[in-house]
Structures are given as structure tokens and as C-alpha cells.
């Protein structure tokens, strides 16, 4: 699919149609004449067939590839019919062409494109590169430990969701970056389960991102995936889309533990996924592990860590199960129930021991800890995750996605966690924000501590003073001294870093830096 213009004023050019093949459509074509030109149109029957295939009840009144383009276009524009001008492309070819604008769009498009590029260049010289996060809330099943805005939504919502994403991007850039976007040096597709999107949707998503942003050379492009969803077709689609890093949500290598939380994978499935990804050229791989799942024991935890090391991935994330009302398992544990294995939760102190053990074991295997939850071989730290701790700018799109920009004034905002609200708001042309606010200098300084200290490199006093001035930074010294005396922080070469024990009690430390 090719697109011209920016929503809400946009024309989509379809290079393939659901429910039709080119040969058949050519046979049934209807011919007409406009301004002395002979033109071929889809037959009415084929048009209706296509509409049915993409889930639209009635054909003929509106057009375009998606049902949610209720924009302010004139009726005449709505009556334009899609005209296939090329034989159907192979999926991969279509994606590549989508990415590079293959010249069919004409001079007007080229002019628009040049203007966009110019804006991008201006922007690039003006500030730091951005990160872009895209939330894909679709899941096959909701895992019992999950407290994100994700769920089992109908596949029919995927197209409207992508449409909404694009609209959100356009509206956001218009509101937040009138001078145009900065170049993007990290992209992260999170979830939900992005790997559940069909290959053509993955391609579409990549295309729409590249339509609005220019990717810096060597940009990190991560996609989250669930074990068992990474088919050969998905791997190819990801690679074709430009994804160069995949984070596999393994959580546990123990099949019984996985089943308990709602997963179906076995070690063999994980191994096959990794092999397929590597064959597709994606070698920058991360595995997620969670300590504290129901039924987990010291032995199964160590087994998961060892298998992770043996898999040879260059990056590992170790999370601790978070007990809160927002996940089914958490709510059950808090209510004292037995469902989801809530009666078999490992002891909190044991979980802390497991985390400490994993940190040491991973370090010994060359996966050095660089952040509370993250371990990597030298040089393979996740650039996108580092943005969060280093307070570098990023834009998040999709349900419950969050954004942070520093220019012209530091501010954060976050989207609604409800998929329907998200679609409705954007359908009505509004940004789907649930919260937004400017950051005061004090808040920024607090963040510098409670985010910066998450990294093993910690925070440097001199850099802080350069950014915030001497007095405000000095005001945090008593808290630092108190925590150092308690053995949770350490001063090292002008930097403040968490000790091993401090990492496990990080919230105690961070809270002290809040006003």
C-alpha cells in the first residue's frame, strides 16, 4: 500500500486487495472515460467482495483500505475508487517498496517528501535523536502476571488500531514538534504481543513509522515477541521491516511454570524461535525472566538462568514479580485466594536471593548488569531502554504508551490504557491522553536520581550540577549520605551508585530523593 499526504488529508493507494486476485479483477473490470482518458475500474461485485473481506458491512458509500477514516474529506473524495495499477506484489517486495517510495506517486508527492526531509534535517541539527515506542496490545491470552494494558482483542481491531496509531503520530507531531521530528535512533515495539500481528500488518506498521520519522543509520529496532509466535513468516516480516533486535518474553524455561501463568512454551519452542530469528539475520536477542512466579523453586529458577546463558543471547532482563491489584495473579494473592497458583507463591526473601544469584551468575557468564533489571554483553545494552534512565527524549504511541520530550520545555504524557477509548478518541480527532504535565526543575532533578541510579553507572555529581545548578544538587547530599551510611549507596569517583543490597532496596533509596 502506498499513501499520499498525512491524515486526515491522505490518499491510500492499494497495491493488493483482500478477497480478490488481480487476474479475476482484470477479467471483471469496468471501463470508463474521464477527461478523455480511458480508465479501468473494479466491477461492483468485486468491490463488494473486497469490502466484505475487510469486514465492512456495506460497500459503495465510503472507500479506502480501512473502515475508520471518518475524516473531514469531501463526499467526492470518498467516492474515489481504488484502482489497481500494478500486478500484486510479493509481501516482502511490497514492504520494501513501501519504505522507499517507488516513484509511482508523482511529482506532487515528491515535492511533499522533499519538504518533509528538509524539516527533518532542520530538526536533526536542533536536538538529540528520539526514541519511538509503539504499544501493540493484542495477545493470544492474558498471562496471569501481566499488569499491562493488553488483552485478547478481535483481530478485526488490528487495522483500525494501526489507522489510529498513524493518526496519533500525525496529531502528536503537529502538536509537539511543529518544526518536524528529530531523527529516530531507537524503535521499540512492545506489548501486548507485537509478534502476533500478521506479517502484512507488521510491514504496514514499519511503513507508517518510516513515513513520519527518519531513522538514523544503525538505529536499534526492537520487537517484543512471545515464544511460539515467531514463525518463519513473522521472522521474515520483522527482518524486512527493519527489526534488528528481538526481545523474547520467556519468563521461565520451566514448562509447568509457564503453563501455570498461561503460556504454552517448552524449552524446545524457545530454542526453535531463537534459531529461526538468527536464520532471519536477527542476532541481537534478549530473553526476559521473571523471579517469583507461582511454584518456582531455587532449582527451577537456576535452571532458567542457566538455560538462558546457554542459549547464547547477548542480553537478558530479570524482573521480579510485582504483587499488585493490576494483574490477576497479584489480585488473587492479595485477596488470599488460590487461583493461578496464588497459594504457591515463593517467599519474597527467596526471590530476592534468586535475583542476587542471577546477577552474579549472569555477570560471570559475561552478561554484565548495567541496570536493575538488565544484563548484557559489552556494547549490546539496549539503547532504547537506556533512554528511559538517561532521560533522553522518546515518543510513545498506542494504548498506555508514554512520552517524554525535553524541548522546548521538559514534559511527559501518557495515553489511556483502554483500547476502545484510544480508538474512539483518535476517531474523533483527539489525542487519547490520560495524563500530561510539564516537569518542574525539582521534578527533573528527582528523576535524575531515581532513574539514573537504576543504572550501574549511577549518577555523576558534576554532570548533575552542570544541568541543575550547584544548590539544588547539594540539597540532595544529605539523602545520599544517609543512604551511604545505611550501606545502600556508594560514592565512587565522583559518582553515586547503588550497592548490591541497595539495588534490591532501590525504592527505599529513591524515595529519599523526592522532596
Amino acid at each position, binding site marked *: 500500500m502506498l499513501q499520499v499526504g498525512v491524515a486526515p488529508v491522505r490518499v491510500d493507494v492499494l497495491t493488493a486487495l483482500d478477497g480478490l486476485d488481480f487476474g479475476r479483477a482484470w477479467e471483471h473490470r469496468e471501463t470508463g472515460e474521464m477527461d478523455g482518458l480511458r480508465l479501468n475500474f473494479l466491477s461492483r461485485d468485486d468491490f463488494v467482495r473486497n469490502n466484505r473481506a475487510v469486514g465492512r458491512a456495506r460497500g459503495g458509500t465510503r472507500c479506502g483500505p480501512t473502515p475508520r477514516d471518518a475524516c473531514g474529506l469531501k463526499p467526492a473524495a470518498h467516492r474515489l475508487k481504488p484502482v489497481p495499477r500494478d500486478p500484486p506484489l510479493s509481501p516482502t517486495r511490497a514492504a520494501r517498496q513501501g519504505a522507499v517510495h517507488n516513484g509511482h506517486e508523482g511529482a506532487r508527492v515528491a515535492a511533499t517528501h522533499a519538504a518533509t526531509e528538509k524539516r527533518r534535517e532542520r530538526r536533526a541539527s536542533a536536538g538529540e535523536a528520539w526514541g519511538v*515506542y509503539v*504499544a501493540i496490545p493484542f495477545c493470544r491470552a492474558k498471562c496471569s502476571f501481566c499488569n499491562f494494558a493488553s488483552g485478547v482483542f478481535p483481530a478485526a481491531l488490528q487495522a483500525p488500531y494501526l489507522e489510529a496509531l498513524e493518526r496519533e503520530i500525525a496529531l502528536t507531531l503537529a502538536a509537539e514538534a511543529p518544526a518536524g521530528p528529530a531523527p529516530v535512533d531507537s524503535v*521499540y515495539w*512492545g506489548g501486548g504481543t507485537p509478534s502476533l500481528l500478521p506479517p502484512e500488518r507488521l510491514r504496514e506498521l514499519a511503513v507508517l513509522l518510516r513515513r513520519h520519522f527518519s531513522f538514523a543509520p544503525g538505529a536499534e529496532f526492537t520487537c517484543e515477541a512471545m515464544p511460539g509466535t515467531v514463525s518463519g513468516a513473522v521472522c521474515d516480516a520483522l527482518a524486512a521491516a527493519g527489526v534488528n533486535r528481538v526481545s523474547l518474553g520467556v519468563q521461565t524455561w520451566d514448562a509447568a511454570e509457564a503453563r501455570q501463568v498461561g503460556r504454552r512454551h517448552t524449552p524446545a519452542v524457545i530454542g526453535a524461535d531463537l534459531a529461526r530469528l538468527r536464520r532471519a539475520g536477527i542476532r541481537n536477542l534478549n530473553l526476559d525472566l521473571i523471579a517469583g512466579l507461582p511454584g518456582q523453586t531455587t532449582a527451577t529458577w537456576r535452571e532458567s538462568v542457566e538455560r538462558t546463558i546457554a542459549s547464547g543471547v547477548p542480553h537478558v*532482563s*530479570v*524482573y*521480579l514479580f*510485582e504483587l499488585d491489584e493490576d494483574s490477576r495473579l497479584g489480585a488473587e494473592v492479595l485477596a488470599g485466594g488460590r487461583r493461578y497458583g496464588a497459594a504457591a507463591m515463593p517467599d*519474597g*526473601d527467596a*526471590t*530476592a*536471593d534468586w*535475583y542476587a544469584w542471577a546477577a552474579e551468575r549472569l555477570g560471570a557468564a559475561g552478561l554484565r548488569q548495567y541496570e*536493575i*533489571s538488565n544484563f548484557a554483553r559489552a556494547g549490546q545494552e539496549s539503547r532504547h*531502554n537506556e*533512554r*528511559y534512565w538517561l532521560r533522553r527524549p*522518546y515518543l*510513545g504511541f498506542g494504548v*498506555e*504508551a*508514554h*512520552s*517524554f520530550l525535553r524541548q522546548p520545555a521538559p514534559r*511527559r504524557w*501518557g495515553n489511556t490504557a483502554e483500547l476502545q477509548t484510544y480508538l474512539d478518541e483518535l476517531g474523533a480527532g483527539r489525542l487519547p491522553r490520560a*495524563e500530561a*504535565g510539564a516537569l518542574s526543575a525539582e*521534578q527533573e532533578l*528527582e*528523576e535524575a536520581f*531515581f*532513574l539514573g541510579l537504576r543504572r550501574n553507572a549511577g549518577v555523576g555529581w558534576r554532570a548533575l550540577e552542570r544541568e541543575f545548578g550547584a544548590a539544588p544538587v547539594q540539597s540532595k547530599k544529605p539523602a545520599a549520605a544517609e543512604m551511604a551510611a*545505611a550501606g*545502600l549507596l556508594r560514592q565512587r569517583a565522583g559518582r553515586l551508585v547503588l550497592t548490591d543490597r541497595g*539495588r*534490591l*532496596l*532501590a*525504592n*527505599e533509596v*529513591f*524515595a529519599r530523593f*523526592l522532596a
Partner: protein
Amino acid sequence: MDQRLIRNFSIVAHIDHGKSTLADRLLEQTGALTAREMQEQVLDAMDLERERGITIKAHAVRLTYPARDGQTYQLNLIDTPGHVDFSYEVSRSLAACEGALLVVDAAQGVEAQTVANSYLAVNQGLEIVPVINKVDLPSADPERVREQIESVIGLDASNAILASAKTGLGTEEVLEAVVHRIPPPPGNADAPLRALLFDSWFDPYRGVVLLVRVMDGRLARGQKIRLMATGQSFQVEALAVRTPKVVETEALEAGEVGLVIANIKRVADARIGDTVTDEQHPANTALPGFQEIKPMVFAGLYPVESDQHADLRDALEKLRLNDSSFFFEPESSAALGFGFRCGFLGLLHMEIVQERLEREFSLDLLITAPSVRYRVTTRGGETLEVDNPAKLPAASEVATVAEPIITATIITQEESLGAILALCEQKRGTQKGFEYLGPGRVMLTYELPLNEVVLDFYDRLKTASRGYASLDYHLSGYRDSNLVKLDILVAGEPVDALSLIVHADFAYERGRALAAKMKELIPRQMFEVPIQASIGGKVIARETVKAMRKNVLAKCYGGDITRKRKLLEKQKAGKKRMKRVGSVEIPQEAFMAVLSLEE
């Protein structure tokens, strides 16, 4: 108003037997309020009163009732407080009446407060009209209740009125009985003024408002009056009656009840039970029965945040304007800093004061476990009153410690008898009476140390009897006991606010239970916290709160930094609600831990 056409009466009942609902019906029936104006429990004006369904302050409302005999009567309904903590106020309210309606629930029958309040009314020489209420309930058994009233209280109940305040059944009979069975006020209209002050409160616009019953003489606007107990004089600025709307009037005649506004600044100057007389022509003798109100239960009140100390003092002073029955004085605690030792009439009173402070003044309070006032004789022969366990002199200096003793009346179902007897024994009670009130119901009389009662006696009585037992008590004296001070040490330091005075026989058991409870209540800190119980410097129990192992958000939330900040702020706020003693954060409820010990 012709004195013969006035009736002053009160309603006495056990809690929840329908007193306030009956009052509502009487108001409605006499047209004092239209149905549209009716709001449940009209007379309970404070939010707290409505929420808890209890009456804290007395009220009086004037009803106009055209009786069947063709005469129109002025009925003054005096609604009294309904809880054991306020029995002195109840007795003064009753002293303003010639008669009382004794309301008894037709299903529940006579309860402890029915007995206690009837005796109060009988002792005031009141004519009592029994009303058996809630006869519409399926479980109502009016005949059994009639027998109980006769056998337990000794009243003739043959002409008891069967009523349902809920449906309005019997309301007119009640009004007729008030007119024909309750005598008119005696009183000499020509004698010097004597009016009984039976309640007072602070109105922010008008100063102190007195609620009085004119016994003799006449009270008029502009009159110079004197309060006989305090000797202070004031000028009457306004007189009013409630119907229940406040209606100003020129005078209150002998036998009448009304409100007096006389530019009085402090409730403490308008003591309940005092006599109002004329400044120029004073009465020779005051009305009988005036007493200084003495608090029975004591506790330390501390602001959770020490910078709220001044706010707390202001709030206590304001509250005292409206409630002269509680007392406070500054106190300081090594653990809690500056606060106040407060005295209350009882546990309910304490709860009410605490709740009003938190609700009306938005204060975050920390309250220590309730205590009583001990009389300590030192070896030097000196006598001290100790209402704060931390102030008990060292054992070597103490000769004797006497503790307040109450006489408690408990009425219970026979099934719960075993559990209640065991509870009373455990609480060091001495049985003084055991009486069957007809089949299946027993009235027990016990002497019990008040300090055992203020801890958790009432809750445990309710548990032992599945909510059926009722309790009433009055102070009956002091008795020497073998009492010791139990100290709690947190991280090696004694926390004075956690000290308790307990009987030596229970000291070990209590100490162990308390240390265990503290371990449950004190959250894990960044270091190990030992908790010890000690008596006279000897440690008798030890528990350990293990050091916290983890408190970290080890989870990827994408860029949701706001969520992380909120979590940290929540944790920080949680700590603020705790009291930092030394280096340990102790939550508020730990200071009341002794109340939730399982024994």
C-alpha cells in the same frame, strides 16, 4: 402557659430499641414537622450522631398537642444521651423531667441500659410509662417483655403501651399517656428563679447556648442571671425554644424548657447540673445533684507530624468549647514528642473526640492505648494520681497502687453465660450478683477493675455473646492491686508511649503477646529490629522484625516514569503516616496494639 398544661418528659431506652424513631413519630404526629421536613433522627444533629445512631448531646423540643380531653398541652421532649459514658448527663436531663417513656424492644427485651436508665429515672422520682416498641416484628413477644419489665425493673407494666415507632402504631396512645400519666411540673412560679442547666454547647455565632428547665420563678430576656456553682453572672440576651425550629421567646415560665443565650464565652463556665438564678433575687439553695464531671479513661494524643502540635492544641481547645467533659493537658513523650494527655468519660467518648478531631480539623492523630487513673502511694507516704503508665514511679519507690473499680451489670442469653463468666474471671472480676430474668436470660453483676474494661472488654463481651450481651457500669471505688509496669523496647530503646500498667499475674503473658503483636505490626525496616518486653528492667520476651530484603521496581514499564514516581510518592506518604522512634518507623496502630491482643 398554665403550668398544669405542661408536661416534661424524656425517653429512656437501650441503644437501638427505637428511642430516636419514636421521637421522630411524636414530632410528626404533633405536626412539629411535616413529613417533608422529616429526616431520620431529627434530633441527632451532629453527623456523628446520625452515623452511629447514638445521641451524644441532649436536646429538647417543644411539641404542641391537642389532647382528646379538648385541652392543648405543651409537651417538652427531652432527648438524652444514650450511652454509659454519658450517664451523668443522662441523670441531669432526667432531673429536668417529671416523667419518662421507657422504650423496650419487643423482640430483644430488657437490656443492660434499660435497667441502668430505668433505675436512673426511678431514682429521680420520675413517673415511668413503659412502651413496648417494635411490636410489628415477627419475633416480637410483648407478653414476655411485659413480664421482664415487671420482674427485673419492678415496674407495673400492665398498662404498657404496645407501639411500633416504625409504622406509627401506638403513637397517639403514647401522647395521651404523656398527658394523663405524667404529672405537670410542680414548681413555684412566684419563688426566686431556679433553673436547671442540663446541657450546653458552643455556637460559633452566639457563644455558649444553655439548655435549661425553669423549676421555680421566671426567666426573662434582659434579666441578670447568676450560675450558682461557678458564681459567674451574665445577662440574658435571648431566649428560645425549639419546635424543633428555633423560635425566640420573651420569657420561660416555671415548668418550661428552653434555650438561653447570655454572651457566655466558654462551655466550661456553663457546667451541666448547675443552677441558674436571678442576680438580684437569688435563690437560697441550688438545685440538688450537681457534680464535677470526672474523666475515667485517659490516653495520649499526638500529632503524627510533629509540626501539627499547635494545630492539635487549637483543635482541642475548640472542641472543648463544645464538650466540657473531656480534659487535656500538655504531655511529652521521649518517643512521640509533644502531645497531650486527654481524659474522657469512657471509650466511646474517646473515639468520638478522636474522630471529631480528625474529621472536623483534618488532623492525623496518633493515640496511645487507653489507661485509667491510678492512686499511687510512695514509700515516702506521698499519694500521686497517675494517668500515664510511663509516669509510674520505679517499683522500688512504690508502696501501693490502687486502681479504679467499677460495678458492671451484664445481661446475657444463657448460652453465652459460660464464655462471659470466663471472660469476667480472666479480667479479674468478682461476682456480686447472678439473677435469672425469666427463662434463658441472666443478669450478672460484677466488680471489675476499670483498666481491664477499657482495654478490650466490651469487644470481647460482644464476641463471647455473639453480640447479644449488654453492659452498663458505674465507678464504685478504688482498690489496692498488685500492679506492675510493662515496658516495650524497640531496637533496644524503651518506648514510653507503649508502656502499660498490668496486674503482675498477667504481666508475662501480656508481655509476650504484645511483643508478638508488635512484630506483626511493625513493617520490616532496612535493618533488623529487636522488640523486647520488660518488667522492672528484666526482659521477659523478645521478637525480631527481620531486615527488609527487597523493595524495588524490577519491571519494565516502558517509559512510564509517572507510575514510578507515584509508587515512590505512595511509599513516602506511607512512611509519613508512621512515627519515627529512634531509627524505626512505627505505624499508628502499633501504639494501640494492646487492644488487639488475643488471649
